[in-house]
């Protein structure tokens, strides 16, 4: 009998790990592409928040979470274009533009949310239902707790695989990689470094927006002010911990998701671990990784460097 309870707990833990990791997976996959292309997008946080907000508002006004998702993706485009224009065309400092955009988006979404919803804060918005996949969903205990998830979860995992494959095996992937490691070579080959980087930043925007929508209309079916609360920075940490490789990055996201899930599970088991330790663990792991304590790190050579012909 205790075996049943034990496996149920493991299943719940695995399920919530996956659920909590997905916004990070989406943001980090986007961030991976733009960092590989040489742009450190500090604005992932703001892009996710834009998606979460516009997705929720869109879902409320259209009554459809699918249209909300579409609106969330469209709404992030101006934000991503601003980041791209500043850091690529104007060659502005990538860190400060990212922080500026995050502050701007936090202010604008909070203001707009209060204007639109007024006192009805934390109002429920139409969201996606969970999807019970065939076969996987029928596994006893685990089928329900782990695999029955909003379809965006499966989309996110598919996107990681697609991005990993594209980066590794296609000409497009080579162009992205070279824009961040050998931009001069890209230029000489006739491709525009700016165009590649613009594309990469816009892609980050779209994936971050989907990650934000997962938070608001996928997971908890409501919007709260500043609801991303650092998920974008965690996504950046995951890319770093993942050594700019898709597989390790995905692992990092799951690990970070597990650390968050533990915050809720450990107290239930009567195990006292300081909450703060679990919250800071992802950043600590990323720091150790980037400090060269977990294998060799190889950041894209031209990360944060604007390209001048």
């Amino acid at each position: 009998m205790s075996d049943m309870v034990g496996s149920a707990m493991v299943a719940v833990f695995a399920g919530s790990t996956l659920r909590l990791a997905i916004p990070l997976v989406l943001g980090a996959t986007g961030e991976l592409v733009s960092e590989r292309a040489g742009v450190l997008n500090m604005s992932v946080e703001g892009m996710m928040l834009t998606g979460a907000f516009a997705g929720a508002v869109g879902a409320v006004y259209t009554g459809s979470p699918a249209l909300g998702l579409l609106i969330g993706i469209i709404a992030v485009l101006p934000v991503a274009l601003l980041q791209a224009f500043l850091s690529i065309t104007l060659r502005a400092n990538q860190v400060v533009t990212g922080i500026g955009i995050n502050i701007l988006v936090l202010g604008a979404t909070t203001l707009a949310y209060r204007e639109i919803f007024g006192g009805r804060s934390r109002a429920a918005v139409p969201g996606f239902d969970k999807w019970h996949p065939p076969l996987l969903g029928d596994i006893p205990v685990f089928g329900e707790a782990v695999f029955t998830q909003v379809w965006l979860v499966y989309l996110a995992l598919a996107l990681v695989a697609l991005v990993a494959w594209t980066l590794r095996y296609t000409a497009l992937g080579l162009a992205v990689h070279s824009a961040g490691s050998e931009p001069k070579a890209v230029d000489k080959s006739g491709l525009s470094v700016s165009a590649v980087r613009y594309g990469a930043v816009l892609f980050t925007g779209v994936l971050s927006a989907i990650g934000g929508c997962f938070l608001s209309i996928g997971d908890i079916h409501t919007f709260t002010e500043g609801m991303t609360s650092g998920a974008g920075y965690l996504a950046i940490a995951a890319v770093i911990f993942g050594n700019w490789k898709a597989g390790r990055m995905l692992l990092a996201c799951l690990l970070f998701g597990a650390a968050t899930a533990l915050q809720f599970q450990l107290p239930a088991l009567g195990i006292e671990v300081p909450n703060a330790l679990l919250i800071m663990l992802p950043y600590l792991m990323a720091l150790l990784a980037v400090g060269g304590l977990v294998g060799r790190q190889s950041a894209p050579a031209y990360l944060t460097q604007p390209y001048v012909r």
Partner: protein
Amino acid sequence: MTGTRFMQGLGDQKAIFLSLAAVAAALVLGLVLVAVIGVSIPDAVSAFAEGAWGSPYALAASINRSLVFALVGLGFILANRANLTNVGGEGQIAVGAIAAAGVCLYGGVAAMPLGFGFVLAMLAACVAGGVWGAIVGVLKVKAGTNEVISSLMLSFIGVWMLYGSVQSEAMLRQPMTSSSTLPESLEIPDATKLPLLTGDAGMPLHIGLPLAIVLAIVVAVVLHRTVFGLRLRAVGLNPLAARKAGIAITSSVIGVFFAAGALGGLAGSMMLQGEQYTIKAGFSSGYGFDGLVVGLLARGSVAGVIAGALLFGFIRSGGINMEMMASVPSSLVLVMQGVIIVSLAGAARWMDREGERR
């Protein structure tokens, strides 16, 4: 020589003009947003002015807030002279505040004569912040770690360390007398609070103001008149050539990050000992990131740091009062701040002399 001086003057004028234009644009946008959300503009403006400089108390609060931005900004331009970007202000504030709170509450300094208690706490904050900053320098020279990434991670770690330090009575949490005892530290003893310049609680300008002015002068002198400043510049311009010229890059980089971190830690102790008096979750309130932005927008100039710090200090104070008195959400101020940061960062290439990138 006169020619370059002249061009330099022109460049500075252009930078000042562009900065004022960005601030003006943000203010106009702010007014438009106030009108959009349906609050009377005169009400909002008077609430803003009241909160920013309307009373001796408000004026002092704005200036005290500016001090924090200024110290972090000074640290930023110091490291930036060596072409290093310190994004660690937020964490340096947090660890500085933890150290200062520990010394104030449990260091037995409250009973020290002549008010030395508050000085020791500030020194502890400087050392803690400095060590936190130096980690970035050590990683940079030993492992080649990108300082933006490591200092950013250390910021988050510092912020959560502060959160953790007030969750347990074994650390800084106040003794639990009931289940509703908040997870925050005790208030620091009066003897460890920063002495007020006027001795009048109606105008709580504290001793941090003259200290920050002295430090601003010191940083200006270090940057422009000392061998250390020259070394930093050499390291920033061409590390390889600097190494060939016999400059000790390792100690320069670690040293400058220690100094930047110490300024951040000091900022944290001023927030604790001059304003908040307790530490609790959210203590650093994003001031480290604001200070970083102030430093970056100053483009290496100490005068620019002071101007930016005052601007952000007054805007923050005015915004807080606008929310309380005129029910304008303070997020409006975030929007204005974001517009200023984004437009000035974008315009940087036209503000730098000879259009060079930094």
